[in-house]
C-alpha cells in the first residue's frame, strides 16, 4: 500500500507492505537510520520517535497507522545547524558510550523536559524507565538530561 507521512517536516511517500513496522519505514524507506532498532519487543526504547509530538516505540506501530501523521526522529532535533540542548547535554556529560540507546534517550529526554522543564532525578529516572542502556549505568544519562534542563537556551553550538 502507498503510505505518506511527514518526517521531520518533509513529506515522504513509499509503496510498502501493510505489515511494515514504522521503525523499518523510517530506517529503510526514508533512509533515516538515526532511529535505532533493538529488542523488537517494545522493551528497549532504542526505536523511540515522536508521532504528532508524542514519543512511541516505533517497533510496535505499523507504518500504515502513522500515515498522515507528523513524525519527528532524532535527526529532527537539530535546528538550523544548532544542536538541541538535550543533544548538547549528552556531549557535556558524556551521556553515551556505544550510542545505541542514545536516539531513544534523546527523544524521550526532550519530551520529558518539554512537559516538565525542571525534573528531579527521580522524575528523570521514571521518565526513561522504558529505555535500556547497557553501557552507562544511567548516571551520565540522568546528568545529561539535567544539564539540558539547566541550559534551556544553550543551543548555540554549531552541529
Amino acid at each position, binding site marked *: 500500500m502507498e503510505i505518506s507521512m511527514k518526517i521531520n517536516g518533509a513529506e515522504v511517500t513509499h509503496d510498502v507492505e501493510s505489515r511494515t513496522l514504522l521503525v523499518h519505514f523510517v530506517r529503510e524507506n526514508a533512509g533515516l537510520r538515526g532511529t535505532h532498532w533493538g529488542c523488537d*519487543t*517494545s522493551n528497549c526504547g532504542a526505536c*523511540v520517535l515522536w508521532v504528532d509530538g508524542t*514519543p*512511541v516505540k516505533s517497533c*510496535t*506501530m*505499523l507504518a500504515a*497507522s502513522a500515515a498522515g501523521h507528523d513524525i519527528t526522529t532524532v535527526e529532527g532535533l537539530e535546528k538550523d545547524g544548532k544542536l538541541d540542548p538535550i543533544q548538547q547535554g549528552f556531549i557535556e556529560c558524556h551521556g553515551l558510550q556505544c550510542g545505541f540507546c542514545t536516539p531513544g534517550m534523546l527523544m524521550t529526554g526532550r519530551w520529558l523536559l518539554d512537559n516538565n522543564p525542571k525534573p528531579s532525578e527521580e522524575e528523570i529516572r521514571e521518565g526513561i524507565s522504558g529505555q535500556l542502556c547497557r553501557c552507562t549505568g544511567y548516571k551520565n544519562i540522568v546528568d545529561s538530561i539535567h544539564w539540558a534542563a539547566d541550559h534551556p537556551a544553550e543551543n548555540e553550538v554549531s552541529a
Partner: protein
Amino acid sequence: MQTPAPVDYVRATSVADALSLLQQHGDEARLLAGGHSLLPMMKLRLARPDILVDINDLDELRGIRVEGNEIVVGAMVTHAEILSSPILFEHYPIFREAEKVIADPIVRNKGTMGGSMCQADPAEDLSAVGAALRGTVVIQNAEGRRTVPMREFHEGPYETKVADGEILVEVRYPILPGAGSAYEKVERRSGDWAVCAAGACVTISGGVFTSVGIGIGAVNAEHFTAVDAEAYLVGKEPTAENIAAAAQMAADSCDPSADQRGPADYKKHLAMELTKRALTRAAAAAKGA
C-alpha cells in the same frame, strides 16, 4: 528480525464502519487499538489475522467524562490519559496508583483501556482495578449496545465476553461518594507485569465498612476479585485484625501457578500482603473513616 505476517490494513472511520468491516471479514479480522499487545503477538505468530481494522481515528471512543453517577472511560483512552486524568484522580486515586506501574511512560502513550480489557491478560492491571470498582463494560455490535459487569466480563485467560463482530466502546465506573481507593503491585523490575497486584475501594460510615471492593491480579483470582473477603468486611470496623483476616481469605481464594515470575506460595503470600496494604490505605482515605 520480528515482523508480523502479511496482513491487510484498513482504517475505520466510525464505530459503525468498524462494525461493518468486522462483519464483512468475520473472524479473520482484528481490531487494532494501541497495538502494544496485538503487534507483539502477531510478530510471534500467536495471532494471525488477515486484516487489521485500525480504530485509532475514532474520536467517539475517546474521552473521560462524568455521566450521572458514573465515570465513563472511552475504549481508546490511553494509559497516559488515565494516569493524568483529574476526574479519575478526584474520585479514584487507584487509577493513578495503578497506571504509574503499568509498563513504562512510552508504552503508556499507546496502550488503551479497550485494548487492555480485551487482551485480558491474567496480569492486566486495569482488570483488577475494574473489579475493585465494580465497573461495567459497554459492548456494541450490529444490533446495538449491551453492558456486562466487569465481574462477568472475563471468560478465562485472554477470553472475554466481546465476541467476533463486536467492539468494546467504553467502561463505566459507579461513583461512590467518600470512597477511598488504593493499588499495590509487586513486579520484578520497573515496568514489568505484576507478580501479584491488589486494589481496594471502600466506603465507611458510622465507623464500619459499608461497601468493599477488592481487585486481585496475576494470581488466578476468580473474576479478578475475592467476594468472600469483601462480604466478610462489610459491617465490620476497619481494624487491622479485620483487614488482615479478610486479606487472608482473599489470598486463600486465589490459585496462582508457579512460573518465571515466582513460586505459587510466594504469590499467595503477596496476595495476602498486598490486599492487606490496599485495604488499609483505602480505609484510611475513605471519608468518615
